[in-house]
């Protein structure tokens, strides 16, 4: 439990620092940082439940993407700002470092092992973002269609 809290705390620091580097506006820094911590918590939960790197990262990224779009609507700001920062704790920095380190040490077995896992996580994150984007667009279109139907019905009456 203590280890997990340390992970959450360090994810918070990492996301906050990264958001400052991305020059997120000061008023949005708390929201963006919180999204990063929550995305990591969702990832950790699914990693615990499924022990599958792809699924855990996919669900974490999906959460970051959908919540990023919702926050974008709420704060009238670009969604990129929210989900780019929120996804940073999911980025496999350690694995990519070990992949690159194996490459420069000409260790083919480790390069393939870490490279494969990094690729799997990358695909999981990308799929999560894409599904989030599509889900938000479809929901937005459905709501717009529903509202226009209601307006038209009102006119007939």
């Amino acid at each position, binding site marked *: 439990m203590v280890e997990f809290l*340390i*992970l959450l705390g*360090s*994810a*918070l*620091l*990492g*996301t*906050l*620092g*990264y*958001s*400052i*580097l*991305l*020059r*997120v*506006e*000061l008023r949005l820094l708390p929201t963006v940082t919180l999204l990063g911590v929550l995305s990591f918590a969702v990832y950790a939960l699914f990693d615990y439940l499924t022990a599958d790197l792809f699924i855990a990262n996919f669900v974490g*990224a999906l959460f970051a993407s959908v919540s990023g779009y919702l926050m974008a609507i709420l704060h*009238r*700001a*670009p969604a*990129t*700002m929210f989900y*780019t*920062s929120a*996804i*940073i*704790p999911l*980025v*496999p*920095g*350690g694995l*990519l*470092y*070990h992949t*690159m*380190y194996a*490459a*420069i040490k000409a260790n083919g077995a480790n390069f393939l092992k870490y490279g494969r896992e*990094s690729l799997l*996580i*990358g*695909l999981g*994150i*990308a799929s999560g*973002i*894409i599904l989030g*984007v599509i889900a938000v667009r479809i929901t937005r279109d459905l709501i717009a269609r529903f509202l226009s139907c209601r307006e038209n019905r009102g006119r007939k009456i």
Partner: protein
Amino acid sequence: MDCTHPVATKESVDPDFLLRTALDVAVHTLRAGGEVHRVEETVERICYAHGAAHVEVFSINSIVTATVRMECGTYASHTRRVLSIESHMARLSRLNEISRALCRREMTLEEAQVAVAEAKHYSPFPAWLELIGSLICAGGFAIFFGGSARDMLASGLISLLITGVIRLIPSSFNAFASLVLLIFLGGLLATFACRLQLADGVDYIVIGLIMPHIPGLTFGAALRDLLLGDILTGLIGLMRTLLLAVSIAFGIFLAFALTGGVV
């Protein structure tokens, strides 16, 4: 050149000025880290909101080209080259507001020109806070990936130092060469910190340092563009991911080759 749009406005709109303004917003959106499909949408929406009859836009990460035709048949066509892209979310947000205001016709094209000129130099906080950001980011991720408190401190301080040094390099300097230099300096200082018993793990310090530069997000964005149909942008993004990874690996290789590897 001037013509009157019958639906959206009674004022005369010069297609050349309209397209220049729309492209100013779009190009700076791209430079601030906006997605390509958003850039294309921005030009289309602004032009249609100001009476365009037909708009064609094509954009990749380094170029935006657009043509607008008005109801009366006058048209304009422009191409803009985008030399560098940096993630600047506050500017992106400002440009997004300008775009919304233009589409709702709450802002004139002349006002938008002034607003874009202001937005492209806008910064939400002073430069020193960005240095603190690099310290927090590297320190946080050093401990996140398993480092000790000493690694966190070392990673944060080294990041602060090298970010300060990198800022002295002119922006015209090659981005990949800057990254190699940054990672090389970071790897060198991390190794020395461990040799002097100031920190415990070079790996964790370097991971903390490379996290803001790691191409994981670029890779994710490239795949997203590919799967959403922006194939050229996606392929360029994948190539950029590869070059970033090679630059980071080369920087680490140089540092470890000079110092004799991980302690």
